[in-house]
């Protein structure tokens, strides 16, 4: 069992879960799906620098071998942007739920659970 296999298979599993959830009908599931896909994409980008153990890209006179710093820089900003995107999509779905009383991605009427404080009948 190599780390390469672990990372590749984890990326595959995250993508599979992400695609499945992104195709569901409720907004929150789509958000979760996007989150999973984002993990996978960030890991994939990071992995393009290959897996290296114990050689962080902190420059030192005594060290001659480092991992590739460029994918790391790209992924660092990607993680933060992912947060921005997730936050925006979450708020968008919240607003759409508040406007329509439905958390269906296409705005169709769907049953909500009984204990929900924002049942659609609440709308005037």
């Amino acid at each position: 069992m190599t780390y390469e296999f672990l990372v590749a298979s984890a990326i595959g599993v995250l993508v599979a879960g992400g695609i499945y959830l992104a195709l569901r009908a409720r907004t929150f599931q789509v958000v979760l799906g996007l989150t999973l896909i984002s993990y996978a994409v960030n890991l994939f980008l990071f992995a393009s620098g290959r897996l290296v153990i114990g050689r962080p890209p902190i420059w030192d006179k005594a060290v001659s071998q480092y991992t590739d710093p460029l994918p790391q820089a790209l992924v660092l900003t990607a993680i933060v942007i992912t947060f921005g995107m997730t936050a925006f999509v979450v708020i968008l779905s919240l607003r759409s739920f508040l406007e329509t009383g439905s958390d269906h991605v296409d705005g169709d009427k769907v049953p909500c659970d009984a204990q929900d404080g924002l049942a659609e009948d609440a709308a005037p």
Partner: protein
Amino acid sequence: MAIAMTLLMLVSLPFAAALAIALLHWASRAVHSGIAGAASAGGLALLASLAAPALGGATVPSASWSWVPSLGLDLTLMVDPLGWMFALLILGIGLLVVIFAHSYLAREEDTGRFFASLMLFQGAMLGIVIAGNVLLLLVFWELTSLASFLLIGFWQHKAEARQGARMALAVTGGGGLALIGGMVLLGLAAGSFDLATILTRGDIVRASPLYPAILGLILIGCFTKSAQFPFHFWLPHAMAAPTPVSAYLHSATMVKAGVFLLARLWPVLAGTEAYTLIVTSVGLVTMLLGAGVALFRHDLKSILAYSTISQLGMLVMLLGFSLEAAALAAVLHILNHAAFKAALFMSAGIVEHETGTRDIRRLGGLAKAMPITALIATLAAASMAGLPPLGGFISKEAMLYETPKLALFGLPWLLPVLATLGAGLSVGYSLRLAGHLFFGSPREAEPFARAHDPGAGMWASPALLTTLAVLLGLVPMLLAAPLVGAVTGAVTGGPAPEVDLALWHGVNLALILSLIAVAGGVVLLWQHKRLLAAWERTPLPDAKLLFDLAMRFADKWTRKAIVATHTPSLQTMLLMSFGVTIALVIDGAMSGGVLTGTRAGLPASAPGIVAWALLIAATAAVVNDAQNRLRVLIYISVIGLVVSLAFVQFSAPDLALTQISVEVVTILLLLLALNLLPKKPPAISSAPRKWRDAALAVSGGLLIGGIAWAMLTRDPGPTIAAYHLANAKSGGGGTNVVNVILVDFRAYDTLGEIIVLGIAGLGIFALLDTAATGAAGARLRAWRADMPHSPERHPMMLVAASRIILPLTLTVGIYLFLRGHNQPGGGFIAALVVAVAFLVQYLAAGFDWSDARKPFGEHKLIGWGVLVAMATGIGAMLLGANFLTSWFDYFSLPLVGKFELASAMLFDAGVFLTVLGAVMLALAQLSHVSQRAARAAGASGGEQP
């Protein structure tokens, strides 16, 4: 150089005036018309200074500035005799129309908008006639359609004005699209978009295989603009415009743009069989149709509109002959028509203004009540009828003289007969217009009783135009011959022909035809009542009805096409996107190759395998347990934690720090959102759909995982990592290469990313700030807390602990920020840590308590962050380096010792501020909304559990 400046001023003066009027929209009518009049008069003076070089000079005055050289679009202006004559019409009649409109429009109307649109139109029209580049001409051409739309729809409260404006825009704008195609093809065929060059390459263009397409498209453009059959129907509906607009755009200038373009491109397009046949017959049909309908209209402006269609048809027909003498007749008639038709429109405006109606059936005998207007309009109508000794007579004779020279459809008698018929009809409607309006006895008492001549301000303009129409007949050699000769030369692209204009040419065929036409016209007027009754019995197609039908048809099918190709369903679109992507990957994989590369793998440790198993299990749980949303958040955080651990393991400490702190704020965000969203909604997907999606998901996962595996088991190609590693310390002044890349090597990317993040934060604010109104607000007010809450709103222990933690967390944040250039840390991570520190205060002590003590506003943080980051970059530019080049040096202070200062740190501070602002804005706003909702519920009597 002087000529270049003159040309530039000539074309920009109206636009400047339009801008000035728009800016002074609050000023009085006199200011607006004053600016417009001054600009028109100034343009006339500039044009006068160009008269000698334009009409008599050896070279055409022109100037050119490069605009978009890669497209062949240059700002080229040139004034040849043709352009000069049209510019004279545009500016001269423009000035008269401005004077007329000043009196015509009531004081309380929006004269600022009117005159600004009018000057916008004037500039666009001038641009068309003096453009020396066909692409530039197209720009101005479209601009006239838009200005005409604004002017026709000036009285926005009238439905027919809005509909007329829309119809005119649809027809002329649609024709404009065809014209764009034609002009581009023309430029390709001729090998240049420069007009002067194109005009010398007529043989090449006519021999080109593109010629039929060029001809067809350009003719559609010209015919729509100049209201030729079958596109003529928009012009009568454009009469909903104020009368000065009708006089200006829809008789003298804009509708002549099509005629102008035909004349302009005469040396390139004319002379072929197709051109002669199409242009002549379209013009002939339009001339007959317009004249025939004009005879039976009752609205003064409608009569004039159809007569304009007819006269434009005659001009187009003459140009279609492809004969120099016919072109000369067309040029002369353009002058005549501009003079008498604008005068007639203004007279119609006066009649309406003074009697309150334009219906010719209610008027009559007005010569007694308004003698000045009657004199002006009758003389102008006589010129339109082509009666001697007026200008219209000479150009109509010239037209009739040419007709036998062309055997249309191989029938030599066809053109003379039909042209004489058209001339007779126009005699008929002209005589009816003048006769029924001003002579005989009043048909209704009320409008007649009100009628009187207006002030000189209103009749001065039409009087001047009518005087010209008369003089063009009496002294044509003096007034028109030199200009007409020069312009005809410019149209045909040859030398200026000899011009012999006179009322009397002896007895010839033209005179006989002319006499027949006049006699016929008199008969038509005499028999008008009977003819009208017959006309009204005949069922005729209504162009507006057909147009509306066509529009509805287009509307319906456009909608259907959109729905068919662009289903408004996220589920369908995502399915398509994933499906297509997966199909593409499969297609790539089918091309063969080996999946596993030769790179040696790293043996996994036991903790590594355990972490991997946790991630797989958590992902499965997220998918499986998606209904229980709160529990799902725990699984998600497990995944995030394992990903962070992976970053630690694989030499990416910066990423691990970022991931773990982003994880905290993401979970907080989802928790807050879940407070308002349903917690455990029942599943709604059907079983087959689930299996279909699962199959797609598994194949997607296998493919992406396979790609990752293939990538990881191969060595990377040559990378640029070595450059970054070698220059981080010496060039960027930092040992943390990742951070140096972010704030120095690729700082431009980072700048873009923080701006995106700031926009996301502001977008969230916009979405939530307005959620308190409308349907969303009603739902928020009806919201009831549906979760078991802690009995204590602000638990003592949490509050006390959070206050102790705050300074400590802030210190950690500052430490991470300061060391970021050399050790793992930096602006992104520090901002996330500090955001978490503040958010803990919100959690513990509540929104109001924390918000009141917050020393900063999130909007300002975002703004200042971006500004600081950009200022750092601009600072480098001021010091002569590239944008965002960093600077650093070492200093030493007592006690502190040696330390480094780098401008990159300032940039990182900008990153810090923006990220902090965006994260805080998102989360604080979200918590605020739920709080507002809770408060609203509490205020309305709901008990908080």
